[in-house]
């Protein structure tokens, strides 16, 4: 059984359909890449799977481990093992990064975890992401640079340990070093359990240290093509024109 199975999914915003008849299966322990030109609604797909209230599902189904997600609120989807790394993580003043992750962890697992035990675990993860411990006490995303926000997203990914991670342009706007750090964080995630990822990107640097199983091309709200990792090189060489014509 696929981990995620999307069948004939149509998504609307303000009564205008923007994603048309999407079919997508992701097996356990696989990395899928979603690419496409600007305005292809790549982020929309990620957000719709997570349950963003901005979008309406008008048709089709989304199954995670065989369970229908369509009518579940985002927190229930999270508890089933779904995670979305946001393109623009929201700033929440007055809540520290560590307290936030701990609350989320406790809500997802239903377990109570001691403050210092959890902090120690977070500290180990900070090392992988080349982040200073002081981030833990800063307000969630407040005053974080673009790169810091993305690293904080990956920190949450590693701490919350979901079975499927959707990464919405986690590499955009990052410098070379930050992309490498984020990429090694992702590699760490993939090797620590039965994990899958759907990486939404329009660059390919983030994929360098990862084994990509499948590449999907989204254009004009439709999945127009899919292939193996070699498709990435092709796109790097010739762009998306062949798929959008």
């Amino acid at each position, binding site marked *: 059984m696929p981990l995620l199975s999307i069948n004939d999914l149509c998504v609307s915003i303000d009564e205008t359909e923007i994603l048309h008849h999407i079919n997508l299966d992701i097996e356990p322990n696989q990395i899928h890449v979603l690419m496409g030109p600007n305005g292809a609604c790549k982020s929309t797909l990620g957000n719709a799977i*997570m*349950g*963003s*209230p*901005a979008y309406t599902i008008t048709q089709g189904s989304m199954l995670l481990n065989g369970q229908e997600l369509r009518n579940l*609120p*985002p*927190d229930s*989807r*999270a*508890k089933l093992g779904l*995670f*979305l790394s*946001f393109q623009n*993580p*929201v700033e*929440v*003043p*007055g*809540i520290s990064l560590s307290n*936030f992750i701990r*609350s*989320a*962890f406790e*809500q*997802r697992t239903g377990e109570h975890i001691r403050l210092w035990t959890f902090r120690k675990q977070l500290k180990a993860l900070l090392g992988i992401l080349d982040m200073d411990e002081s981030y833990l006490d800063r*307000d*969630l995303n407040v005053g974080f640079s673009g790169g810091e926000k993305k690293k904080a997203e990956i920190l*949450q990914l590693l701490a*919350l340990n979901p079975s499927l991670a959707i990464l919405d342009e986690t590499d955009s706007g990052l410098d070379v070093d930050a992309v490498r750090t984020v990429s090694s964080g992702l590699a760490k995630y993939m090797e620590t359990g039965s994990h899958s990822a759907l990486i939404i990107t329009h660059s390919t640097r983030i994929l360098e240290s990862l084994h990509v199983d499948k590449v999907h091309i989204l254009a004009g709200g439709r999945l127009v093509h899919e292939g193996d990792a070699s498709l990435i090189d092709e796109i790097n060489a010739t762009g998306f024109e062949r798929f959008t014509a």
Partner: protein
Amino acid sequence: MTEKTYVDDINRSLYDFRYDEDGYYKVDEGLTPEIVLQISAEKNDPEWMRDFRLHSLECYRHLQVPDWGPDISGLNMDEIVTYVRPKTGISAKWSDVPDEIKDTFERLGIPQAERESLAGVGAQYDSELVYHNVREEVAAQGVIYTDLESALHGPYADMIREHFMHLVPVTDHKFAALHGAVWSGGSFVYVPKNVRVEIPLQSYFRLNAPGAGQFEHTLIILDEGADLHFIEGCSAPKYNVANLHAGCVELYVGRHAKLRYSTIENWSKNMYNLNTKRALVEEGGTMEWVSGSFGSHVSYLYPTTILRGENAHMTYTGITFAGADQNLDTGMKVIHATKNTSSIINAKSISKSGGISTYRSAVVIQPNAAGSRSTANCESLMLDDRSQSDTIPVMDIRTSDADVGHEAKIGRISDEAVFYLMSRGLSEEEARTMVVSGFAESVSKELPLEYAVEMNNLIRLEMKGSIG
């Protein structure tokens, strides 16, 4: 931990009313000199205090009910005596206490005996032992920390007479006059020159004396160079059938002294909270207010600071949470009365379920207050479209040599923020509560840990069931 003791029998004579032969309660036509004299006699007032009460009553009769703020017509001023001397036994049974109050006690984890006391139905809750230990500890430093009534007969009687209702004159407003006539209970603290009190002191009336906390008077005097943190209040809603609170707080901060006065108030939702708080700060002194206002039906609350000495400084950090059927009019007032004084104001408000939260402030810079500075920052969070949030800042600047700023911001919780938090596994209610707790953090971080925890619990309670 020491076990708490209970007083077997309560002297209820203070609240007893005359019953006619049929056992029916006779309604008194109003607050009379006889009633005030009776209160004075029961409290064994010195002569000057008795006269003071009578004078206050006279002022009370001539003053008008304020007409510029939230509606208080629900208070029956013709039968004010029923607020002053509530009928005993009217809620003497635990089963008569409203479920909402009981539920709150339950959620806040307050022990049953303490709950009964707070609800005014139990035996008097005896915190004398705990209080006594703290008093002994600070007494070694020469600090006087006692209830105001007994202090009136001790060596500090003259000091009290010189300060009592001098900062808040009874002519100030109708409820100050009422307070002067019928005040009962409260704390007296005197910190001598250059003494730093390391532990925060807490208001003595918190759990003592039935009906206390209604017209209580707090008088704190800090001598030169003294340092004190005083905490008033309690997260548990005080339930009282006599739903008027008209307390008075007077704070005297000496030269280079520093006083922090922290309050968490959570009155039951039927309460008219008409409280008056005022501080006088001498040269180089610092007054810090930390204030959390929850509960009550209507509140008028504006802690006032008079910066009388050069380089005197004030900070005000406050938060108000108005829910359904609540109209909370809170804020502050600062008077820069001399050169180089400064004030910093951080006020926050939250309104929800149709609640009205108004921030009302006055910053006065007098002509002789050259070189003074004041900055104010007001932030409101409205949790739905039915709620209301107003800001009414008054600035009265009488010198050109002053630096005054005011910033105001009104916000909502964005759908995007809720989605982000929910995507991590928090329910909608938890997500919203988290944003509100974060909003209140600038106030809770100023409180001692146990009070910060209480305030967070209160926010959780207020947010409970807020998702329709």
